[in-house]
């Protein structure tokens, strides 16, 4: 599905991974050539595209985040006391701030700059570069999973844990003489324990 197979991981030309990188096809029937496999039946049935839903959601989250950041600034201007400059006032907009942080990291990725990430015509999960300009970072769609980011730099070094490795596993020898601690809690001098009896 992803175009990454074990043979490609061991390829001597690791730069080919960047070319092979494709966004994950959506699970709702859309194909990578921009046409829907189900003939748009879901659209005809009234289902909105996933990209539009995500864009509206990201707009709401971004407005919430910017609103709380603006509230902290306005609150500080109004009262001017250092005790009003608290991050807890932005806690309600935390999800939007996290979304902007992730989106900024995705846009700084070299694959995004090269255009390998961001083709939104197939409705895939890695769209964003063709979002309307006025939306800025709002046109992205989450989540941006770790496997989307494992294409270039980590695999130049290794195989990024995609191939099983042989590791030594040592099982400690079990000492079967021990019993439950409650069995040996008697004073050995006054009342000899079973171990003491066994030694005798």
């Amino acid at each position, binding site marked *: 599905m992803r175009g990454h197979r074990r043979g490609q991981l061991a390829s001597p030309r690791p730069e080919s991974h960047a070319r092979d990188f494709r966004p994950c096809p959506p699970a709702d029937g859309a194909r990578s050539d921009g046409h829907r496999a189900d003939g748009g039946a879901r659209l005809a049935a009234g289902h909105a595209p996933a990209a*539009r839903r995500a*864009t*509206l959601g990201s*707009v*709401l989250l971004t407005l919430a985040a910017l609103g709380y950041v603006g509230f*902290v*600034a306005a609150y*500080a*201007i*109004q*009262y*001017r*006391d*250092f*005790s*009003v*400059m*608290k*991050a*807890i006032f*932005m806690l309600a907009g935390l999800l939007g701030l996290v979304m902007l942080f992730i989106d900024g990291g995705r846009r700084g990725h070299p694959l995004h700059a090269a255009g390998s990430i961001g083709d939104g015509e197939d409705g895939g999960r890695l769209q964003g570069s063709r979002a*309307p300009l006025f939306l800025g970072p709002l046109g992205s769609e989450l989540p941006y999973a770790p496997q989307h980011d494992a294409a270039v730099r980590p695999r130049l070094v290794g195989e990024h844990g995609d191939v099983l490795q042989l590791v030594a596993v040592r099982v400690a020898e079990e000492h079967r003489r021990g019993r439950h601690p409650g069995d040996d809690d008697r004073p050995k001098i006054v009342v000899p324990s079973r171990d003491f009896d066994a030694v005798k």
Partner: protein
Amino acid sequence: MFSTIRTLALYGTIFVPVVAAACWTLGPYGSHYRQSGSAFVTNQPVSPLPHLIEKTNPTRPGLTSVVDGLLTFRYVDLLRHPRNTQGRRVYPRHRTSVWTQVYARTHSIHFDAWPPAWAARIPSS
């Protein structure tokens, strides 16, 4: 794009009045407005507005001017004095920077509530 904007406008027209009405009735804003004439009143007196560039000190200096408070990030001073103080006259420079205060309070719970053993013998300026 136009359909997206129209959808945004439609949802915004529904969302904003519903949320505003809910906050007004379920939150304290409505009762505050009826009692004191302001929906955002608190038990702390409002300071006079700061100047854009000229610094003026409020009672406990926080934001001294708009530029100094909102357009600065005093990271080096935060490294030198990694704790907040309550003084009215002697205080670290990062105490007048809004985003430095927000950043420090986010990343360390001890920035505000530091143990007395952390207090410097020489007051920081």
